[in-house]
């Protein structure tokens, strides 16, 4: 059963969002879970995307993605009314939501998307929410309004200082950890390198820190092990044991290397796709 794109929007230069028909997933999904999609036929690449939101009544889920590889580029070229061949899910373990007390939600770049449903659920559970959102520049910051609605405090940083504070997210994170009212729990979702440095900060303060990992996946059901990370010296499968983990125990360096395993092929696929797109006149 193909999945129709009900609506689609561009959030920033390379970030897009779409509402997609997937009634069963919309009904079953919980914050923190993801889907695996593939666009065209049985041989198109399967990629994981976090479910940013869902509307069980309308039977739709909301996905947010960054144009990077071939599949995300192709997805960005699709329009309202187009169909995605395969959407599987919801996959992974839902986030453990509790009333922790004060929670810091740190989002970087596209990571704000998967972070939002978690922050919402945490707010609903009675937590005090301090959100720290980082982006390269003002144009690349997404979901600021949504976060401001649910945050008791919102801190924005940009790398170039074009908006909010000119800093990396680790700076305000450290300051918050130093406050007399020490946070009880931290959630960090963003690029691997950012999660790594945030965890280094929070480890000094011994504050439990959950990260959400986005490794390369194939099946998403625990069958292949391609998504594995080194966790506390042992292999864990991100698609079934995660995607969320205690960030203090994840080997981020190795994970980043694994994320780059197919760099060469990905580049080739993207270039081929772009050429093809020019030919069929989709490129504007």
């Amino acid at each position, binding site marked *: *059963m193909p999945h129709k794109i009900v609506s689609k929007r561009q959030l920033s230069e390379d970030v897009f969002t779409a509402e997609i028909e997937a009634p*069963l*997933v919309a009904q*079953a999904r919980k914050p923190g879970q993801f889907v695996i999609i*593939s666009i065209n036929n*049985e*041989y*198109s*690449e*399967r990629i994981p995307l976090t479910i940013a939101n869902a509307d069980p009544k309308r039977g739709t889920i909301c996905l947010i993605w960054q144009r990077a590889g*071939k*599949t995300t580029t192709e997805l960005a070229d699709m329009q309202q009314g187009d169909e995605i*061949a*395969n*959407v*599987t*899910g*919801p*996959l992974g373990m839902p986030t453990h939501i509790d009333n922790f007390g004060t929670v810091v939600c740190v989002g970087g770049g596209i990571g704000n998307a998967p972070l939002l449903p978690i922050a919402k659920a945490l707010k609903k559970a009675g937590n005090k929410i301090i959100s720290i959102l980082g982006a390269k520049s003002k144009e690349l910051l997404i979901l600021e309004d949504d976060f401001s609605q649910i945050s008791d405090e919102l801190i924005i940083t940009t790398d170039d200082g074009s908006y909010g504070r000119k800093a990396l997210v680790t700076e305000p994170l450290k300051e918050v950890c130093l406050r007399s009212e020490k946070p009880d729990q931290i959630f960090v979702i963003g690029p691997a390198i950012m999660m790594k440095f945030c965890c280094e900060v929070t480890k000094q303060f011994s504050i439990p820190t959950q990260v959400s990992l986005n490794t390369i996946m*194939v*099946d*998403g*059901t*625990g*069958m*292949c*092990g*391609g998504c*594995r*990370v*080194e966790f506390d010296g*042992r*292999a864990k499968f991100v698609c*079934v044991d995660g995607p969320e983990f205690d960030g203090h125990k994840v*080997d981020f*360096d*190795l994970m980043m*290397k*694994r994320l*780059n*395993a*197919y760099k*060469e*092929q*990905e580049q*080739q*696929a993207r270039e*081929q796709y772009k050429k093809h797109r020019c030919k069929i006149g989709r490129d504007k």
Partner: protein
Amino acid sequence: MTDKDRQELLKQILKKQETEKLKPTERYEIPSQDMPEQDPVKRRDNVNEVAVGYTETHARLEAMRCLQCKKAPCIKGCPVKIRIGDFVSAISDGDFKKALAVIKENSLLPAVCGRICPQEVQCQQTCTVGLKFKDPTKAVSIGRLERFVADLDKNNESVPAVAVETGMKVAVIGSGPGGIVAAADTRRAGHDVTIYEAFHKTGGVLVYGIPEFRLPKAIVQEEVDTLTKMGVKIVCNFVVGRTRTIEQLMKEDGFDAVYIGVGAGLPRFMGIEGESLVGVYSANEYLTRANLMRAYDFGSGADTPIARSKKVAVIGGGNVAMDSARTAVRLGAEKVYLVYRRTEKEMPARIEEVHHAKQEGIEFHILQSPKRIICDENSYVTAIECLKYRLGEPDESGRRRPIPIEGSEFQIEVDTVIIAIGNTANPLIRQTTPGLEFNKWGNIVVDENCKTSLEGVYAGGDIVSGAATVILAMGQGRIAAAAINDYLAKKKMS
């Protein structure tokens, strides 16, 4: 033997048979018929099927080697008890339709089983002819004959008859060989059957694990198409336990019975240093990328990548290890090493696969096993460090236990490592189905009718027996379907 000689021989025998029956000694004299194969060098560069199949002449000659033993030891070796003597004799008479009908009484997927059943440890192991020559490869080639008649039927459009609709609903979870058979048999009884499959494509291990060169995907697709024509509904991208639970299927969606055939599907790793480095794969991942996602067509129709390996080490000695090694060859690896802790004699892989692997240039490193995997500064695999082994006393499995030789470390230079040391049960169903009984290995506990601890829930295949075989999964799918049909008939009456 040339084709001409073969035809000549068949003619002579047929002529002779007009007047008298062949004597056993005359049957022994008929040379055993090898199956024509693609050239080993050429086939390294393609994914087409290696064994190209018997001709009619091959098949009839091979069938004439059968002695029609009264005790039929071959049938005892067959997990689904096909009437082997009868179908083989029909082939020698040239009545291929009848031969197929006999097989289909017990096996729904002869084109699959004829290709990938380990006949040498089943029906052919006990065959009188093989025993006479003291060589299982000289037994009557039951599997090749089975494949021959199944392939003749290839474009057959006929669809098995379906009984009057009963209004009862059956859910089949997983579309592997067990699920396919369970779906066909329950549908035939008139139930409303839906298959739920986690992947975007049906067939289970037959499509994601076993490579095209051993089992063409078109054959599996045909079987699935037949199910659709019979009115079985197929829902892909549906992960039971995540999309819906078994409880929801039964309580909310109105299913009266469930067959669980989700396979083994959780790859085992060795727990050695370096197992998550870049370039280390489980066999499941490597084969899924290559087979299901067609990574060998990357850039021309498929866009799932796979490592561009030059030197590959495959760890393990089973079919999965052979399939991985032979796939690596076809993906362009210059050197492929198969590293196994015991000796060739203990290898669980089929003899035919070992033979094909060697022909294709795969180097066997026996009595060796990796101790750690070594990488460069970018975490890319550069070598494996192995230990040498010797064989000790037999263990519980009856195979001699491998014992590492201290201080025997040495290195093999490789850029890719594929780990093929088996699978364990996927815990998803266990975690999401309260009341369902599992054993300590995580396999579902069933009785002789494949019934589980939950009413209306049946199970079969690798999730019950641990990693086993296609024919066992099919056999259990059939037993479970019969039990489901009984259960639903009773349920309807009450």
